[in-house]
Each structure stands twice: as structure tokens, then as C-alpha cells.
């Protein structure tokens, strides 16, 4: 198996070297004339008001949580999908029950309005 993983490590190294090298090279040859206004956060040319580190919509948090729940579902489905032909009808029924239970949760989330963005 090592023979399949070694090239990936090599490719990661090449990509990282490329990334760091081009960053360093551009910061070496690029011009530098910093000024206070230039280094301020961009706000359409006006003076920045307040900080960006403020509270944001809780919706993003809910989406992240739902993602984790459903992604775990997907993780369970992967190994099942590989061997489901060997499991036969038993496997299909088991997974159908699993998906139905999850679907009930999905409908609950929908009805609670967690997927609304208006």
C-alpha cells in the first residue's frame, strides 16, 4: 500500500513548495509603499466603521450542525454501498429503515424552519 501513498506525499510536497516559493518570490520583487489608509480594511472608500469581529447570523451555525449530522449519515452509507450486493435484501431493508429514520429528522428540521433563509 505504501507504493500508492508515497506519490501523494510527494505531490503534497511539490504543491507546498510551489505555494511557499511563489509567495516569497512575489513578496521579494513586489513593490512596497504601505500607508495607513491603504492598510485599512476596505469599505467602499469610506472610513471603516467598527470591527468586523461582530456577531453574525446564527443560521450559519445551524447549517454547520446539520452538515455534520447528515455527513455522518453519508459516512455510514459509504461502507454499506460497497458491500450491499453481498448483504442482499437484508442490507437494503436495514438501510431503508436507517434512511427513513433520518428522513423523519430531516422533515422535523424543515418544519422547524432551520432551512429557511428569508
Amino acid at each position, binding site marked *: 500500500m505504501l507504493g500508492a501513498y508515497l*506519490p501523494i506525499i510527494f505531490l503534497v510536497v511539490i*504543491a507546498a513548495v510551489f505555494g511557499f516559493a511563489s*509567495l516569497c518570490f512575489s513578496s521579494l520583487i*513586489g513593490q512596497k509603499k504601505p500607508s495607513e489608509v491603504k492598510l485599512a480594511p*476596505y469599505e467602499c472608500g469610506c472610513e471603516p466603521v467598527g470591527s468586523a469581529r461582530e456577531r453574525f447570523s446564527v443560521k450559519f451555525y445551524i447549517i454547520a450542525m446539520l452538515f455534520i449530522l447528515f*455527513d455522518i449519515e453519508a459516512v455510514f452509507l459509504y461502507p454499506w454501498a460497497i458491500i450491499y450486493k453481498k448483504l442482499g435484501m437484508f442490507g437494503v431493508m436495514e438501510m431503508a429503515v436507517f*434512511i427513513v429514520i433520518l428522513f423523519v429528522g430531516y422533515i422535523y428540521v424543515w418544519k422547524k424552519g432551520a432551512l429557511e*433563509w428569508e
Partner: protein
Amino acid sequence: MGFELFGLPMIYYIAMIVKVLVVFVFVLLTVAYATYAERKIIGHMQVRLGPMRTGWHGLLQPIADGIKLFFKEEIVPSQSDKFAFLLAPIIALIPAFIGFAVIPFGDTIEVMGYKIPLQIAAFYDTAAGKVVDLNVGVLYILALASVGVYGIVLAGWASNSKYSLLGGLRSSAQMISYELAAGLAIISVFMMSESLSLQKIVADQAGFGWYAFKQPLAFILFFICSIAEINRTPFDLPEAETELVSGFCTEYSSMKYAMFFMAEYANMVTVCAVTTTLFLGGWHGPGFLPGWVWFIAKVYFLIFVCMWIRATYPRYRYDQLMRLGWKVFLPLTLLNIVVTGLIAR
């Protein structure tokens, strides 16, 4: 074969280095010329000419752009988190360029009596007499897609600018939503191939037994979700110029901006390659051309489709985007799995 290291012959290492370098340069060149092709194709679709001045019909435009970006001033905003600000483009770039490692782009070739599979993360096991590749190839690609989100969140947060933060948040919410649907859409393919190894999936599709014909719904859902996941039009909400300036990369300049840009295009190349491998038969094609030519042709065609979509459709609104992902695609993918489970046995 004389010299061996970790039980692998010397020619394995030579083949590995050559394959990695060739693929890396290929992706880099494709990325550079995808920017040119995009400007040219969309230009012609809008009855303009696109770049014309640099070289014949503007063919040197990507090189000129690259050199220009190297010489641009590097701005690190005074209120930003400096370390995270510098790290974010690299975190976005690396996963975008290494996704290609598991994709088989051609048949096995023979050099000096040693068989070399045209896939980076694979080798020919002489004792077992078969090609061994990464048996979790698809999981590797999905994992890299998830890592790519970190670069964008980090960029949005580290910039300490309101546009960047909102762009980063929107982008990450969009990417994880569609990653979910994309990950569920391809499960029906694994149910048919009974493997996550891309060598096996491609081998199953020999002779026009493409999964795009057997799983048309999964194919369409996966391609649309992929376009949404790589933030391309009509789902380019994070870079909705009219409301968020430039989204998460508002504060970025010079090569750091270029790295986000390259990551986006490299992701597009990877996604098109994955779609080709999973649904369009990979490198299989009529025998009068070698496999890798068919592979490149299919990938380039899908890249062209991405650009065609960009020229055709207007941008989605954010609530429409989330509704489509969560309320339409997610139930459809689950339905597809159940139907496949009942029919394809």
C-alpha cells in the same frame, strides 16, 4: 531490477517523480489557459473578441497576467491576523492541486519491461500481477474538498473586513451544503461498482457502460453540486461583486490573490476530472486514440460546459441557493439511493 527501497524497484520511484511532475505541470498549464479560454469563450458568446493584444489572439495573456501579479504590491491589512492571513491562500491552494493524485488518466503503459499505470497514486504489483491503487480514492477527494473550505473560512476571518467575513461565511455554508449533496449523489455509483477505488470504477465502465447512462440523476446532481461547491456561476455567491465586492478575497492582493484564483480553477479541473472518472467512463473511448487523449478531451469538454453555464445563467439568490441544496437535492439523492438499492441488485 537491482536497487530496491521499501521493497519497490528503482523504476517505480523514477516513474513516480515523472508522473507527479507531468501532472502538476499539466494542471498548472490547464489552470492558466482555462482563464484564457474562459475570457475568450465568454467573450465570443457575448459577441466580443476577448483578449487580443498579447500574442496571436491573446495567447500569451495568462503569462502576462501571471508576471503582472508577481510584481503587484503585497498588502497585509493592519488589523488582520497576519499569520492566518498568509496561511489561508496556501491552505486553499494545496488541496486544489493534489486532488488529481487518485485520478486514473490512462491505461497501463510499459517502460523497459516495467508496467506503469497512468495514475499518480498507483503502482503495478509484479508479484500479484495487477495494478494497486488507493482503495479509498473517492474518500480522499471528498476529504480534500472539505479541507479546501478551511482556507476560505480562514481568509474571510483573518482579513478582519466585513465583506471578507460575510463572503467567507457564505462560501463555507454553501460549500458544506453542496458537499453533502455531492457526497450522497455518488453513493449510487459505489453501489454499482462495489468499490471506492477509481481504477475499479473506470474498469467497470469499459465499452460505453458509462455510469452517466446507468445513473443519469446521480450524474446531473453530482455535476451541479460540484459546480456549486467550487463556487462557480450560477452559484458564485461568495464573489457576488454587486453586494460583497470580492467576498473572502477582498483584502487579498498580488500572488496571494492569484493563489485563490488558481485554487478555484484547479478545483474546476479536478471536479471535471472526477466527473469524467465516475460517470463518463474515465479514459475509456474508441480504440483509435490512446486513453489519455480521451480523458483530456472529456475533461476539457466538461470545463467548456462550466464556462458555457457561466455565460448562460444569471446568479442565484442566497436563499434560493440554500433551498435548492437542502430542500431539493438532498431528498433527491436519498431517493436515488433507495431506488438504486431496490432496482440495481
